[in-house]
């Protein structure tokens, strides 16, 4: 079972995904199964930033700032999102340097 991300933890998009923004949201397609996922605005932004290699703490801070949301709330949301994306195999931990 996936755990909440540690603050310094970084991730990468699975190579078996393709995604794009659709207006403010995003759609992520699992190329192996053909199953797709819609991400709303904030989830899409988190997905984008995680893919850019920002760690969990940086993502939460940036989203909290951009969307004017409480940091604690954003951290909780991010934890839930990362858990779900990892469970679906869409998000992978970055390979150790």
């Amino acid at each position: 079972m996936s755990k909440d991300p540690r603050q310094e933890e970084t991730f990468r998009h699975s190579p078996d995904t393709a995604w794009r923004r659709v207006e403010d949201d995003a759609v992520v397609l699992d190329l192996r199964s053909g199953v797709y996922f819609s991400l709303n605005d904030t989830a899409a932004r988190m997905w984008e930033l995680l893919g850019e290699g920002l760690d969990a703490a940086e993502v939460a801070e940036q989203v909290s700032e951009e969307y004017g949301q409480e940091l604690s709330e954003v951290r909780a949301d991010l934890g839930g999102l990362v858990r779900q994306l990892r469970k679906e195999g869409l998000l992978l931990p970055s390979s150790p340097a």
Partner: protein
Amino acid sequence: MTRAGRAEGLADLVLRQVRAWEEQGAALAAGEEEGIRELHLEVTHRCDMKCVMCHHWLLEDAGPGLSARELRRLLDKSRLLDRVETVVVSGGEPWLDPEAVPIIALLRERFPKASLGVLSHLGSARLLEARLTELASLGVAGLWLGSSMDGVGAAHDRMRGRRGAFRGLEAGLDMLGRRFPGTAVSLNFTLTPDNASELWPCYAYARDRGLGFGAQLVVEHQGLPASRRFRWTRAGLSEAGRQIALILEDLCRSAGALEALLLRPLESAGLWARLAYWGHLRDLCLGSKPAMPDCMAGRRYAMLDPEGGLFFCPVFKHRKAGNCLKEGFDAAWRSPMARALAAELSRCRKRCWLNCVAHPALDRVLKAALRDEEVPVRAR
């Protein structure tokens, strides 16, 4: 709240992006000067069907139709038609016209690179076979064929006003498969309050046979006779909308629309135009405003009736912009009367969504948007 999920329907999701492209494209393409891209020729009013929505068979004083000689003169002198990309021959039933073969051969010669198609009812398999054989012997290649299909079985017959019409259509399709395999064939459904529930069965019929399929709301030709006028009810329109929604989902799945959106958006312009067309048709049935912000009829699209009358849109067929046989095509097209009519139609706010006029407009705005689209990058 942050949310990830699978709730949204595939078609709605894809259409959101297509709509966004349409908006971007409309802004990018606004004011672009363009030549005539589509030429549609009605070669005869004669027809052996009595379709309930049609005026051709009701025209009692119909003349002999367009001759190949007159058409050659008209085409030879026109420069405005040089950039035409699509030429469509229709009627009436064009194959009944004794000039059909020389006219089509002439069009192939004049527009060697254009997409060239014939719209007919395909219900006279023998005549069709004879005409196509003659065209093949003249070296005319790459012709596509279109036909109406307004129901499966008796429902089609009722719309055509002739018993056995559906059997005839099937015989025509069988003959084409046997004798002219590889010919692209597309069926077009005229959506009326009487046959809305037949839409999905017809779509499935075409899909299962590898045929193209389109649909449009019945055109009430103003100022022309018709054996019936149609009155839509809210329930009829919502049934049509429901059937179109099924088609949209099926199209998205069978064409791999999501993969195309994510991996090949630039190569899939034809698919986006198709989905956009169906999406707007659905929304129109469900009560949305007309989708065409700036109708291209009169700028990109020219229609000629068998007497040489120039018109821009089937709904306003009775409003002729001039006569190309008398004035010459270019002079008729450029005349102050024609330009005033084109300007008026560009502001038209009818609840209309016609395959023939909408597709070129969609195609144009989507291509403009896709020029700016970034090539997708896959995760590594």
